[in-house]
């Protein structure tokens, strides 16, 4: 199994940490992983993206141009990454902040109201975990228990009390992912 993922959105949405938690979950179940961020003169409100690869085999190139899954969280990223999903692949997006929904006919498309659900749960910071939950419902490449282990590893000790909240957010995402089209 090799899953090549791009997660793209605004800086500050937790794009890079979502990728990191996913990568750590892979490590927890003995898989090979790579996490390659866009880095540069980026800031809150600017665009940010990260390429994550989780695989049973040694990973060749961490830098790739087409993906099994694209998780898209703003319009700029939709414009840039919708065309990079492999035919038959998955595009998951949050419709908040998307003015032009995806148009491809040859890919599986899902959406999750991440921003709205996070607001309803009273904490906008768990937005990324809701989206991660939605993704894991569509593609259960890592087990939930390993995600929790990954969270423990990647969060500093002082935030460990927030792990149950993150777990709730993942479950919320899993329950609320909507199918737009399947091929």
């Amino acid at each position, binding site marked *: 199994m090799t899953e090549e993922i791009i997660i793209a959105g605004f800086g500050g949405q937790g794009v890079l940490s979502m990728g990191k938690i996913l990568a750590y979950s892979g490590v927890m179940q003995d898989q090979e992983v790579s996490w390659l961020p866009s880095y540069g003169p980026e800031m809150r409100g600017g665009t940010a993206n990260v390429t994550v690869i989780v695989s049973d085999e040694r990973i060749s190139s961490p*830098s790739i141009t087409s993906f099994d899954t694209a998780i898209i969280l703003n319009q700029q990223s939709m414009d840039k990454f919708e065309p990079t999903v492999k035919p038959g692949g998955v595009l998951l997006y949050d419709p908040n902040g998307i003015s032009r929904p995806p148009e491809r006919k040859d890919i599986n498309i899902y959406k999750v109201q991440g921003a709205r659900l996070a607001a309803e749960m009273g904490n906008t910071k768990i937005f990324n975990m809701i989206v991660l939950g939605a993704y894991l419902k569509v593609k259960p490449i890592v087990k939930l228990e390993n995600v929790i282990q990954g969270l423990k590893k990647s969060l500093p000790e002082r935030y460990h009390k927030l792990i149950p909240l993150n777990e709730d957010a993942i479950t919320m995402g899993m329950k609320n992912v909507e199918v737009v089209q399947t091929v």
Partner: protein
Amino acid sequence: MGELRLMKGNEALAEAAIRAGVDGYFGYPITPQSEVVEYLTAEKPHERTGMVVLQAESEVASINMLYGGGATGKKVMTSSSSPGISLMQEGLSYIAGAEIPCVVVNVVRGGPGLGDIQPAQSDYFQAVKGGGHGDYRLIVLAPSSVQEMSDFVPLAFDLAFKYRNPAMIMSDGLIGQMMEKVELFDPMPRMTDDEIKEKYPWATNGKPVGGERRIITSLDLDPHRLEDHNHHLQEKYREVEENEVRYELFDCDDAEYIIVAYGSSARVCQKSIQLAREEGIKVGLLRPITLWPYPKKQIREFVDKGVKGFLSVEMSAGQMIEDIKLAVEGQARVEYFGRYGGVIPSPEEVVEAFKNKFQED
């Protein structure tokens, strides 16, 4: 098995420095290398091992702190990115001339000049052909994974002390910034002053009672003596070339063509050769791990075995291709493909370039 962590290349390198028993790190922040200084500052290694971490006032100061610290037989290192490494060239030449062991890390970014902060390999000439003035060589290691960012720190120190020569770890923004799984090696203790005195009779850590005064310098105004010193350096470099070449092969057994690439480019090309083999093209990958000494003999052996052509894939404008051509001595075709200025080639475009260069054969 050692401790398993998910780390950025830069962080793994910094942690490896502490675990390798480094005595002193002197550096100045610059993207895409800043996590090294950041990690070392946050980790407070003086509390773990007594290691000194100092943010110098400039790269020129850092490299001269290495000259001073290294001359006493201590394990010292610095890291920077391209423009900062350019500032260090005078010091590196002095250090090579004075035969002081130390480790310099270059997390290469796009150039020339201030360039940008994205990954590049365009400091190849500077790293392997000298960089500073005078006839000297750096031992240059090119990691292509986060694991190697960790593993090459103790290796670079071993080589630096074995040959009393500065060693460079030439990485780039991609390897520095990405996270991968890394197995950390068990910590090695720092050497005590007595151990250093016993092991390194050249170190300037005080005149032994009844012993000779020790002098470390790159200056000798007598041209004949300086020529002798240069003879000695050249003999040492031949010994390094004989003993320290390192490389890795992928799918080369039945290869009709070989892609040569190092560091990040080698990772991209691992995917390229998979894609090419799916189309039935018999192509392998040779990844130089030491950029100097360069795996010349190994390339030449592939020519003798009948390999038809070599493709140098670089994130630079045709630098390493010169060393491949020197190895091949006109006996096979050598072509180049690269992206530069901070652009990473895609695995697919490498395959495309390969076909354009060689498929009409």
